């Protein structure tokens, strides 16, 4: 593990913990957010037969850096009627909520911030902070649009947490563990051991599990997509109705915090889907390090596989964003309560029966 290695290296538990806790932020989230913002713009542009940013650097690769520099220089506007304390605290809370989820995400077998045995539940719980932050932002802004956006966001996130949790419950029932590390280790070796293809089960059980797992995967992907407020579930920040939703009143770095949190969240939920159903950091077909007899190569490979799975799901999120129009509020609720929740209950029941066999 990373912490032990750093502890042996530095000889100080505080320093080692400090580095381990800051590592995902500086090594992963910030570069990822920079890249993802650019990727989003490029993907959207190419899907609409445009080119997107082309001027800053080769094909616009430095565009986000220019944008960040612009945001840093901007004036930090706070309207007089806002509730200053909550207004200033809200972006921080949203960011903390999405960043804390990275503590338990296993980037590779070697690097997990904290391998707690409540992994998934921790993620679901800590991302609840995001709802609080969004509500705070909407309320403190003292703006109709912000408040409407925040209310919609709260309603949406709370509704869509139910199917997410039901599918997670199904998986817990099947695997008997809440730790993301154990979940990943369980789906080791080859891709037919991934939970989307029934996990390590054999025989008739596996065949029965495959369709249920595929359905479960689709449901958890949809509901987590709704939880991070992205199109087609972006009614909290629907720019054609609510200007920009709960972050209408924010400018400069506070706005950038919301933005960073959104992109961090995007990766976090993609990572959850990857860990639960697609084997986490496990390679789909053995490791090069094992074949070559180079054990130090395996964590790097695992990191590669994990990020590629995560980035693939992030790409699918972008792909969906530029394919589907936005839901109406009633459609959004109907979709969750009438389709996702009953079907996830059925999946829960059937998987429960299968585990009894």
């Amino acid at each position, binding site marked *: 593990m990373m912490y032990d290695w750093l502890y042996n290296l530095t000889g100080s538990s505080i320093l080692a913990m400090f580095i381990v806790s800051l590592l995902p932020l500086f090594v992963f989230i910030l570069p990822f957010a920079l890249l993802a913002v650019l990727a989003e713009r490029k*993907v959207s542009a190419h899907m609409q*037969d*445009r080119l997107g940013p082309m001027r800053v650097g080769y094909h616009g690769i430095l565009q986000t850096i220019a944008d960040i520099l612009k945001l840093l220089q901007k004036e930090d506007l706070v309207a007089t009627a806002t509730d200053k304390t909550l207004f200033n605290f809200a972006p921080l809370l949203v960011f903390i909520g999405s960043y804390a989820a990275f503590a338990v995400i296993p980037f590779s077998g070697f690097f997990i911030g904290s391998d707690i045995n409540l992994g998934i539940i921790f993620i679901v719980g800590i991302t609840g902070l995001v709802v609080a932050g969004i509500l705070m932002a909407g309320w403190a802004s003292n703006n109709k649009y912000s408040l409407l956006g925040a209310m919609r966001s709260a309603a949406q996130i709370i509704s869509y947490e139910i199917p997410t949790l039901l599918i997670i419950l199904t998986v817990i029932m099947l695997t008997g563990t809440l730790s993301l590390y154990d979940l990943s280790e369980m789906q080791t070796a080859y891709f037919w051991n991934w939970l989307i293809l029934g996990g390590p089960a054999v025989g008739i059980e596996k065949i029965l599990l495959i369709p249920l797992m595929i359905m479960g995967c689709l449901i958890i992907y949809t509901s987590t997509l709704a939880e991070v407020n992205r199109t087609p579930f972006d009614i909290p920040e629907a720019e054609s109705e609510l200007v920009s939703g709960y972050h209408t009143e924010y400018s400069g770095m506070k706005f950038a915090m919301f933005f960073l949190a959104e992109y961090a969240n995007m990766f976090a939920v993609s990572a959850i889907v990857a860990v639960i159903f697609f084997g986490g950091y496990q390679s789909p077909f053995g490791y090069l390090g094992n074949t070559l007899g180079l054990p130090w190569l395996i964590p790097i490979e695992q990191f590669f596989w994990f990020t590629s799975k995560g980035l693939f799901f992030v790409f699918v999120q972008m792909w969906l964003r530029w*394919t589907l129009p936005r839901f109406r509020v009633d459609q959004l609720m109907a979709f969750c309560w009438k389709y996702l929740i009953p079907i996830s209950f059925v999946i829960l029941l059937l998987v429960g029966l299968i585990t009894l066999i």
Partner: protein
Amino acid sequence: MIDYFVKFWQGLFTILIGMKVTFRHLFVPAVTIQYPSVKPQLPERERNRLYVNMDDCIGCDQCARACPVNCIEIETVKSLPDEDLGKTSNGKKKALWVTKFNIDFAKCCYCQLCVFPCPTECIYMTDVYEFSEFRRENLLYDFVTLLPEERAQKKENYEELQVKKEAEKLAAAKKAAEEKAAAQKEKLETKPIDPSSENKEEKK
């Protein structure tokens, strides 16, 4: 109940169709033209900034008169009789110095009406459309190829010529009047035959 599953399946299936379309468009070449570095192909007869080829201009003022917004200003000066201004490319003899040929592109409406009357086809539309300026005065284009001193000189030359001509005219008139007077005198003097008149004839 069946309706419920049909709806669910249709929702899923139509999303996949939509995703297929957007994915295909990911690889369709972009229609964007990177403007300042890549320029669009303009149609053959596009109307942009005018250009005047002063080598061919005979200073006939027809373009200025055709202009609906009066953005062309022309002043011409007659050349001296011994000056040869050459010929235009379609064989017309040039007889005038063009000392002023200003086109104000702030006024120009790019209607191309000045192009058609030109007898030597020296005023025409070019494909230049990037000539924006920060000051409106900079849009006043001067097409005359002569230097300011030369223009002044041409005017002076002409005025001198006029003065000279006037003087010559005066002199000629004087001479004519004198001759007339002399002739009359002679007529009067012919009746009494005078030997002096024979002398005059010999002198001539």
